[in-house]
């Protein structure tokens, strides 16, 4: 067994054992949030790494959360069925919006604008149908009767949620890796550089982009549904809308969009930042996190486009003090 696999197994064992050793509920709560958002950010990065920058993912997340909760409250549908239905809804919406975009070559900034509208529309629909969704006041899934927790996917125990979130996060990473090793990644890299040349190599450009978009949307809806089941309270601002979409872009770019664990690093940073502001400044700091996100986003795009993790990995592979040119200079000097 090689060292990398062994390292992963040890890390995983530590993560699984953690809630049984360290039982602090506040820390576990933070970890669950980090894992759920990491999964959401990973979902976004599956598209984002190929230059398909979507600001519509807040919409998919909102659909995941609200469809699951509405089906439970109004029709008594168990989340075990409600979550897949919410994912299908998000998937269908993603295809409806993305197909015309890809078919008619709406790329770059124009694609961003179309997806931005999608986020806005989902937010408006949730707010406008307040008789069903509670509007901007938020929405709470009905508590299940005792003993029906599993059926309702409601658990009071933080450890259970931690393990669920850990499993889903891990599945997200495996999907990322599966795509990374598939020919689809090569096709998407080619498409992101030159659509005509990719088509001339035989790639069905529209279908490849739709596949990636669909996977990303389905995963994001699942993240929304999990967030809803865990928090037992959702509001349009926390699970949908442009702010959530921007938060995804920010976190992924800060963490690193081209590496598997980049979005996870981004989630750790964004959630700790929000918590520090909340605890340190309380209600005086409401909205500050968005200001900090905005500033950092600009700085990262200019100075560290590969994100924190991406840059660290580059640095380990080729430390800046001994760059290749430098090495050759040293070798030449040694020969003299």
């Amino acid at each position, binding site marked *: 067994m090689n060292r990398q696999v062994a390292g992963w197994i040890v890390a995983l064992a530590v993560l699984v054992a953690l809630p049984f050793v360290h039982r602090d509920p506040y820390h576990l709560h933070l970890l669950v949030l980090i894992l759920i958002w990491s999964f959401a950010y990973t979902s976004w990065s599956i598209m984002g790494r190929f230059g398909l920058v979507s600001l519509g993912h807040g919409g998919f997340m909102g659909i995941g959360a609200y469809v699951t909760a509405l089906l439970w409250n109004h029709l008594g549908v168990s989340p075990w069925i409600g979550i897949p239905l919410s994912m299908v809804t998000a998937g269908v919406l993603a295809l409806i919006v993305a197909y015309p975009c890809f078919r008619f070559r709406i790329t770059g900034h124009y694609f961003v604008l179309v997806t931005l509208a999608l986020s806005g529309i989902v937010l408006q629909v949730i707010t406008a149908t307040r008789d069903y969704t509670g509007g901007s006041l938020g929405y709470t899934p009905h508590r299940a009767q005792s003993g029906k927790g599993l059926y309702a996917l409601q658990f009071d125990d933080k450890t259970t949620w931690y393990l669920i979130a850990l499993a889903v996060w891990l599945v997200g990473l495996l999907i990322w890796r599966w795509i990374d090793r598939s*020919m689809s990644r*090569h*096709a998407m*890299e*080619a498409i*992101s*550089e*030159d659509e*005509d*040349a*990719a*088509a*001339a*190599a*035989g*790639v*069905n*450009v529209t279908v490849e982009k739709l596949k990636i978009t669909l996977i990303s949307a389905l995963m994001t809806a699942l993240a929304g549904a999990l967030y809803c089941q865990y928090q037992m309270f959702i509001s349009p601002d926390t699970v949908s809308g442009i702010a959530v979409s921007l938060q995804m872009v920010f976190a992924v770019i800060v963490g690193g969009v081209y590496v598997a664990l980049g979005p996870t690093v981004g989630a750790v940073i964004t959630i700790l930042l929000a918590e520090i502001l909340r605890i340190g400044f309380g209600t005086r700091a409401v909205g500050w996190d968005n200001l900090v996100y905005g500033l950092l986003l600009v700085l990262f795009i200019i100075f560290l486009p590969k994100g924190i993790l991406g840059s660290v990995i580059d640095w380990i592979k080729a430390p800046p003090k001994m760059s290749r040119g430098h090495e050759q200079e040293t070798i030449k000097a040694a020969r003299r």
Partner: protein
Amino acid sequence: MLAVEGLVKRFGGFRAVNNVSFRVEQGEILGLIGPNGSGKSTIFNMLSGTLPPTAGSILFDGHQIAGLAPHRIINRGIGRTFQIPRPFRRLSIFENVVLAGFYGQGRHSRARAEEAAERSLGMVGLPTDRNAGVDGLGAAGLKKLELAKALATGPKLLLADESLGGLDEKEMDQAADMLRKIRDELGITIIWVEHIMGVLMRVVDRVMVLDHGEKIAEGLPADVAGDRRVIEVYLGTDADASLAAAAAAQARRRIEA
């Protein structure tokens, strides 16, 4: 093998290609020449599906392919290169060609794609090293990569677009010989678009000349080279006068020396 009938492409009021018909027989190399803007690349773009024709029919192996999407046309067996090489710089040389082999052969098998990539890279004379990057290639290397990508899709008909622009004379000759080798060894039929008449005339079996979107001549290289309209197109209507002027200038230089 290929039968093009009444092909038209209009961009707004401009007719880039006007009622062009021609045939390509199995195993031949057809040269397609003409000045800038004569419609050569537009015809290529329609044959490969990059542009849909305004009117006309394109029969390939007896099937209508006019207006099909590019990936479908490639899977039917028409490969193409671009006038300006368009490599995927985020992939290695090998990955570039494997991509074409994977999607272009229509079977979506990785093993077959890698096989095709090894074969195509060997054919054009590029290294099959898995990690060599595209950035190490010069103009000639990029043209070879372009050709290897097209070959990896397993074409029956290869559309080679101005493959010699930017090469020196020796490289040009090598590239021309390469096309000949591809036809002779792999049995691939070729349509070759080129600005530079000299090299092309040496290699092709037949040549077709375009001007302002219309076919003005077609036939054996020797016949076409002597065609009055072709000379006019390439040298201008005052061809005789300019030749005379050139001769006079040369004579004057000799006297001065």
